[in-house]
């Protein structure tokens, strides 16, 4: 087990390095840099050149890369050219909000998707299956921004049940920052009001973001369960008189879930990408909007910093999913 983790972590290092090289040169091959925008309305070429020199944009690209690599090795992502704050500070303040949203969506998608997929497989080609098929195609096909606006119109404007935007009501003081996860921090501080307020703010964005993942997980679970139901051990268990409920939810599901679990790992990357849209519509103060802003203004230290951090998280999640595989299916455990 330990050897497995070690091997996976070592394997992740070259892919992260590749990611770093690729992003650095992709971002820097575009001629844009923030110097002109920083110099402002009436800047002279000399002024722009001075700013370019101040930030080191006039150095050869490979030299800039070596300098940058040295910084990253020390977990220093440099300073945003615009906000003048360390990129790591900005990421630290925003990433937990994005993770809180994506993890909630992932849990929502998993804990709804797996039972729904199982039910669909059990009622193969009958109405629950057909309904789910329509819903899951819709779930993948519906544009998140449209769904988000519909949710806002219904739950926030018409029914007045849930807030329209943000992470916490503007009149409410935030709980002291510990983990950056508002739900956890408010519980740690014993602030029940902040906890419920955050939860209300979380519902609509999490519903929007989970839609595509829920559909995917449900479909993969359905396919897995259908396949397992054809297996001999199921027929044998039925013949032995194992109650249907136990058979399906305990034995069949455990044997069919690996494909869906693999999807969860892959989905995580998609969810972080999808968070950009959802965060924009709901004014969720996460990493997505911050990154888009950085791309538009060519603030490349921010772009790189975010890419590296998300790359690390993505790699970690996939290692975790592989470990869960082992927990679910003992046959895979031997390979670990």
């Amino acid at each position: 087990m330990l050897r497995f983790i070690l091997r996976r972590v070592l394997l992740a290092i070259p892919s992260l390095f590749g990611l770093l090289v690729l992003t650095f040169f992709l971002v820097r091959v575009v001629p844009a840099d923030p110097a002109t925008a920083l110099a402002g309305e009436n800047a002279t070429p000399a002024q722009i050149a001075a700013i370019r020199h101040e930030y080191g944009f006039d150095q050869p690209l490979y030299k800039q890369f070596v300098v940058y690599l040295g910084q990253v090795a020390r977990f220093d992502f440099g300073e945003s050219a615009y906000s003048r704050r360390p990129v790591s500070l900005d990421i630290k303040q925003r990433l937990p909000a994005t993770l809180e949203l994506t993890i909630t969506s992932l849990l929502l998608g998993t804990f709804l998707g797996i039972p729904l997929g199982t039910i669909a497989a059990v009622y193969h080609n009958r109405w629950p299956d057909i309904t789910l098929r329509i819903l899951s195609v819709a779930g993948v096909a519906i544009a998140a921004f449209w769904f988000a606006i519909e949710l806002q119109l219904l739950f926030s404007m018409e029914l007045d049940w849930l807030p329209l935007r943000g992470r916490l009501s503007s009149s409410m003081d935030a709980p002291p920052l510990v983990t950056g996860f508002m739900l956890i921090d408010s519980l740690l501080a014993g602030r029940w009001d902040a906890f419920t307020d955050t939860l209300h703010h979380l519902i609509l964005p999490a519903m929007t973001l989970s839609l595509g993942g829920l559909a995917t997980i449900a479909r993969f679970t359905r396919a897995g369960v259908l396949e397992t139901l054809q297996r001999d051990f199921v027929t044998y268990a039925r013949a032995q008189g194992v109650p249907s409920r136990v058979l399906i939810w305990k034995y069949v599901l455990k044997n069919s879930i690996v494909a869906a679990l693999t999807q969860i790992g892959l989905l995580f990357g998609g969810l972080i990408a999808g968070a950009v849209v959802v965060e924009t519509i709901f004014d969720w103060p996460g990493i997505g909007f911050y990154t888009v802003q950085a791309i538009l203004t060519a603030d490349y230290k921010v772009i790189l910093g975010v890419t590296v951090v998300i790359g690390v998280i993505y790699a970690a999640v996939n290692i975790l999913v592989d470990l869960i595989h082992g927990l679910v299916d003992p046959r895979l455990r031997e390979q670990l």
Partner: protein
Amino acid sequence: MTFWSKLAGAVAIAAAVSLTPQILTPYAYAAQPGTLVTGDNLPANLDPHQIFDVPMQLYSLNEYDNLYRYEGNPPELKPWLAESYTVSPDGLTYEFKLRHGAKFHDGSEITADDVVYSFKRVLALGKGPSGAFKPVLKPDNVTAPDKYTVKFVLDHAYAPFLSAVPIVMVVNQKILKAHEKNNDWGAAWLGSNGAGSGAYILDASTYRPLERVDLKQNPAHFKGWSDNPQAPKEVQIIPTRETSTRVLALLKGSVDMTDSYLPTDQVERIQKAKGVHIEKHTSMRVFVLRMNNTKPPLDNINMRKCLAHAFNYDGFITEILKGYDYDLKKAKAFCDKAKAEGAPTTRPIEIHIQSQLEQTNQAAQLLQSDLSQIGINLKIVSDTWANITTNTAKADTTPDMWVHWVSTYFVDPENWVGQMYDSQFHGTWKASSWYKNPKVDELLRKARSVTDQKERQPLYEEATRLIVADSPDIWVYNTVELRGVTDRVKDFRFSPVGSGGEMRWIKLAN
């Protein structure tokens, strides 16, 4: 039950309990008395000497004071921290007399030394606001002869100087010096903190770049509050990113003001709704489709005139600046003429738009559809502001055409015609049509050095006539700013400088 299923049950119960009261009692948003929430945009950081754009004015006009300030529409220059000024007959020496007793937020008095420090800091940082001063002002020529006098000696006469003085916000020298690191003039620190004297005080503890700024009323502001006891006690700037959310938040009352780039359908939606209205103000922000005057076929005047006549101005927006009318026949005639003169009119022309600003795309699409009728192939290229401004540093990397606005930063023809068409500014994005006419250069340079406004005016008029005749760009319109506000916001006072961002004039009904 296992531990995990117990935990899952507990979480489910907690969620249900926390939701129940919410479903029973509607999530009605109650506006807080005395607190104004605006959904307008924030600058990239909070240092008014580093960033110089419209969002910065929303912040800096509240946190900081300047020597003179533009108020009203059309904007008028009013004494602010300075009570008066004198200028020497040769137009080189300006002296400003400061008012006595005005205080920074930390309680210390604003003196001439702080003003000198502020101008030196702007010049040393060399960022946004410095452009208007660098060519004419050396740091050593800003001095403080006494505690309440600031003296500027210009390198040569420069008529727009006074109009540009409000650009520089006065910062607290003592605080900044305490936060200097590696001779950075406190630049890293001031990006996330305040050191001003303005009518509102930044709460640095809740500041989040591009996401949130909280301002509290400054009871000790030199202007006092007796003229407006109903001014907002607190101002929260919480930008909304998505137009639809922005308008819904306004209709719900969770923001009191939107930005001023609303598309027509949203404006109509606000006009129909109760409790909110549209503040409509004519601004001095000019919308331009630039042309690279050095690249064939755009180096041909008839080709440029052809494009200028092919733009459907009326179809695009209500108010046209001046110059050209929409006439496809005329456009075709000019294009044919250009072709006869050997201009490669069949080459596809690329127009670069700013992908996050839908209006730039709409303008390009409109021109594209009309041009296709007269056989000109216009290609729309999505681009970003940072990329475009970098590319406009050289003529050969400047796109054929691109779309942008020129906002009002100081009220002088220099802000528009001077910096856009004098060839000495080639290499800056404002002069990125690479237009060169020696006669125009001469007129603009003369206009800049003459201090008598009456003498300057005919010079600018003559230069403008020559420029319009050469048709270097397509001038589309003078922006009308349309902003959604809730009805509890009274006396919204608009000035094209700052786009109505000064909050102290607003009366907030409860």
